[in-house]
């Protein structure tokens, strides 16, 4: 049992699909249901939100001078790292981060179904091998070592990026396959207001609001959303079998992200953020399960304070965060009612010194305290981690060379020194070469260490070296190819013991290697713009040690790790009209049950039109998801929806 499977054992998941021929029917039905059911939300919104707008200087579009404060990039822009980025507009085309990554990146999303959990696997790694940062602070669950991306609304993120490959020297545990960085930022306008609503198949209805405003010297930014779905889609495992309507799959989520920015000087920024979110979701049965009455409530509270000071020679940053998450799982049929939660307090300070125009040095210190509790822990465990990290970058003509290093103590025990070395450089205006070598690790999760019975306090961190080298040809239109190679030792597997319960051990060595190719072609003609982009990944990720429990042969590909995956995207802009089509191919994957899930193609089509006026603009978007009505599942026995529809309306001031 992998660490995310352990998560599933105490959490649980969902899935499948349905086809709707008349999307407007869903829009209207959902609208009626929405206004019937969500009166409380609307009242809350006006009670909470209206005073903020009253304070705000309405329709003042003056630009903020403070927005010039720039973020240091020495940690996140490690030389030799391939990076993919999405801005606010690109993010808004997707409901959740899971949808974005699935459709527009090479990351494999292990989705258990519509509205159900979704974890990531980057470059053939496990779910815990991708670090996730919210404004520079890690937000994975220390209990599971991962993050459920289906719970991450894109509306609460202004910029997202993937840094491929290992970077544990900069970001610590889990940054093995990649780092997903999610940032918030203040907008240039003093006042802005955006309201969006969408409705779609399977009773899906969303309402969201985002506004930035001034309160004295402070800039406030408030986002609030509510989304719901019945997820009662139909699916048909095979054409000779009856159509089944998904049951017990409803989803209801609400959240608030409140930010305050203060710029005491033009080179200083203080930001305070509070992110509260609650998700109620039913956990549907698998395709080989008669019914399910299980449900789960996920609650998260995240607060953070960042201070940043920038001058010609020095950038200081102080970050602190306090995160709390609850998972409350219930299955009345099985008389199960389990609450788990954790607290995570983090603090770090870093200073980046610009020695001269060719040299930069960064030194930082971080500390994290984590506490977690669940019935299955003997005593609620705590963990203290302290890390010292440093980075040095040398520029030599058109080449950058960077060295990172990290030393970390976890509960008094030293983690082996974690170094990395990267470079990039221009051979010509049209050819860039980059590469890196990095040592990376993942600490055992709290479940690995303390689960009762079976937790293994003697587990060692998963640790290993990764190398990669890549080229990029072109600029706006480009082709890139990156070859990577990585071995991770002490790979943790859960397996049954002689006493009958499960226990994790450092059992295996996993060798991941592959070739990632990307291309983008851009064509601009008068008022039209055509973008064609895509990628193809070939990744082998194999166990190098034969194991009896679980039964794994030497050289066997990991479960749910496709060797082949590809995606393509076509964007056509003509004046205020835009059409997007993206297509994904996921190759066959092995499951832990000795079965193979077939490859599948998924296509999504989106059309939008922007109405622009002097004081406001609005955008109407129409989405057809899984347009080819593919019958597929990402996880065995958890069918996904067929063709479905969504209409979205955005109004901006």
């Amino acid at each position, binding site marked *: 049992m992998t660490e995310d499977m352990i998560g599933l054992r105490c959490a649980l998941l969902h899935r499948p699909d349905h086809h709707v021929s008349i999307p407007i029917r869903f829009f209207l039905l959902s609208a009626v249901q929405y206004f019937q059911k969500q009166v409380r939300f609307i009242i809350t919104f006006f009670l909470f939100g209206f005073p903020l707008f009253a304070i705000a200087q309405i329709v003042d579009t003056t630009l903020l001078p403070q927005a010039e404060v720039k973020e240091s990039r020495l940690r996140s822009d490690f030389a030799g790292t391939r990076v993919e980025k999405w801005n606010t507009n690109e993010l808004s085309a997707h409901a959740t981060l899971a949808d974005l990554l699935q459709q527009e990146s090479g990351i494999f999303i292990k989705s258990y179904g519509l509205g159900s959990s979704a974890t990531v696997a980057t470059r053939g790694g496990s779910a815990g091998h991708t670090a996730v940062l919210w404004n520079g602070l890690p937000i994975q669950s220390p209990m599971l070592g991962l993050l459920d991306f289906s719970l991450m609304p894109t509306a609460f993120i202004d910029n997202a990026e993937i840094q491929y490959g290992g970077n544990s020297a900069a970001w610590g545990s889990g940054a093995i396959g990649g780092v997903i960085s999610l940032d918030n930022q203040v907008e240039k306008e003093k006042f802005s207001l955006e309201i969006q609503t969408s409705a779609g198949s399977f009773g899906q209805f969303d309402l969201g609001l985002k506004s930035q405003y001034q309160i004295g010297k402070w800039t406030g930014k408030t986002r609030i959303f509510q989304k719901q779905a019945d997820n009662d889609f139909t699916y048909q495992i095979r054409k000779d079998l009856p159509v089944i309507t998904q049951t017990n799959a409803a989803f209801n989520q609400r959240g608030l992200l409140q930010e305050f920015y203060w710029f005491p000087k033009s080179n200083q920024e203080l930001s305070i953020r509070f992110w509260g979110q609650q998700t109620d979701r039913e956990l549907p049965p*698998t395709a080989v399960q008669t*019914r399910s009455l299980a449900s789960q409530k996920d609650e998260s509270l995240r607060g953070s304070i960042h201070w940043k000071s920038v001058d010609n020679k020095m950038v200081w940053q102080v970050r602190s965060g306090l995160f709390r998450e609850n998972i409350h799982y219930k299955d009345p049929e099985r008389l199960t009612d389990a609450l788990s939660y954790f607290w995570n307090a983090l603090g770090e300070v870093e200073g980046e010194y610009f020695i001269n125009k060719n040299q930069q040095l960064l030194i930082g210190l971080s500390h994290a305290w984590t506490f977690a509790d669940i019935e299955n822990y003997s005593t609620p465990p705590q963990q203290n981690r302290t890390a010292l990290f440093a980075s040095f970058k040398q520029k030599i003509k058109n080449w950058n060379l960077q060295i990172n290093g990290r030393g970390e103590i976890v509960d008094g025990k030293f983690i082996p020194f974690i170094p990395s070395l990267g470079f990039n450089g221009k051979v010509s205006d049209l050819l860039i070469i980059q590469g890196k070598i990095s040592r990376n690790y993942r600490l055992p999760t709290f479940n690995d260490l303390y689960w*009762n019975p079976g937790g293994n306090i003697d587990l060692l961190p998963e640790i290993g070296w990764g190398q990669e080298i890549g080229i990029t040809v072109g600029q706006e239109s480009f082709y890139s190819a990156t070859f990577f190679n990585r071995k991770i030792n002490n790979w943790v597997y859960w397996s*049954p013991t002689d006493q009958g*319960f499960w226990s994790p051990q450092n059992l295996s060595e996993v060798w991941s290697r592959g070739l990632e190719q990307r291309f983008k072609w851009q064509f601009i003609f008068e008022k039209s713009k055509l973008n064609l982009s895509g990628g193809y990944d070939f990744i082998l990720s194999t166990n190098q040690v034969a194991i009896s429990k679980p*039964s794994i042969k030497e050289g066997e590909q990991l479960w749910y790790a496709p060797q082949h995956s590809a995606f393509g995207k076509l964007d056509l802009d003509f004046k205020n009209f835009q059409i997007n089509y993206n297509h994904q191919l996921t190759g066959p994957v092995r499951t832990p049950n000795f079965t193979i899930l077939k490859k599948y193609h998924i296509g999504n089509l989106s059309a939008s039109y922007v109405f622009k006026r002097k004081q406001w603009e609005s955008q109407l978007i129409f989405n057809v998801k899984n347009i080819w009505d593919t019958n597929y599942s990402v996880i065995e026995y958890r069918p996904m929806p067929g063709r479905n529809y969504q209409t979205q309306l955005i109004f901006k001031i």
Partner: protein
Amino acid sequence: MIKQTFTFLALIFSIFFLQAQTTSTFEDFNLPADSFLNGSDGSGGFENGNVFLPNEFTDTGTFTFWSGWSISTATDVTTPGFTNEFSAITGGGFDGSSHYATSFISENSIINLKGAAKGGSVEGLYITNATYPFLSMKDGDSFAKKFGGVDGNDPDFLLLTIKTKLDGQIGADSVNFYLADFRDADNNNDYIIDDWTFVDLSTLGNADELVFTMSGSDIGQFGLNTPTYFCIDNLITNDNGPSSSTDFTVEFEVSVFPNPTTDFLIVDWSQNEGTAQITNLQGRILETQLLQKGKNTLLVGDLPKGVHFLQIRNEGGLSTQKFVKQ
């Protein structure tokens, strides 16, 4: 007179023989309804009749875990999942009794034969599914499939294999009992055991231990996904040691039919006079009848439904056969 004398001797003989069997019913534990013993008292197992059922119990402070055997009077036949791990799908023990034993197989489960049963043969025992695996196989859960799969045609099965161990050596023979069997092409023949079913172990020969292992079709790289629980009751041991039973098992040429039956049995044998005796699994004599050479009819319409023994004997020896009254 001779016949009467022979009949009397045969009765004495048969009573002696029948007393040489012990049935472990687990009723002696005198548990209240809906309760269980899972080894939390540190006993390491449960002795009943001439058998010992080992138990391994772990207490980690906040969590207890057991494997091997438990003694149960649990009656819950509707609650799925791990929280209902002690219940038998029958809602009680064999033949309306309250006590039975539930096993959780990790690697395997064993039963030690004790006292007079040690080294002897085992007649058999009743087996049924525990509620937890029964409902898991019937309806599926988050980790195990509904048997038959999405279309009902998957050839799923859950198999309990019983072997003996004598002087530390595993016996070559085994008895297979399907707790669920969906392998037949005709789905109407698919079944999950939901009543107490007698499993004959007499063919396995002498034993110090019985060894139970489980296998199945819903298997992955971590082993069986189906919960590996089962329940037993009324385990019948022969108490005469390794050689005693062979003294009485001189086989006649005799045929008994129909089997199963509802109203009568035909006993066709080539011997001269003899005695036929019908007993239940607890050894109680239900019917006795003299036999003549050729075909004899035994009326069994008044017997309770279930498995019975038919013992046929004369001065030349004894033959025991099992039949099912429907």
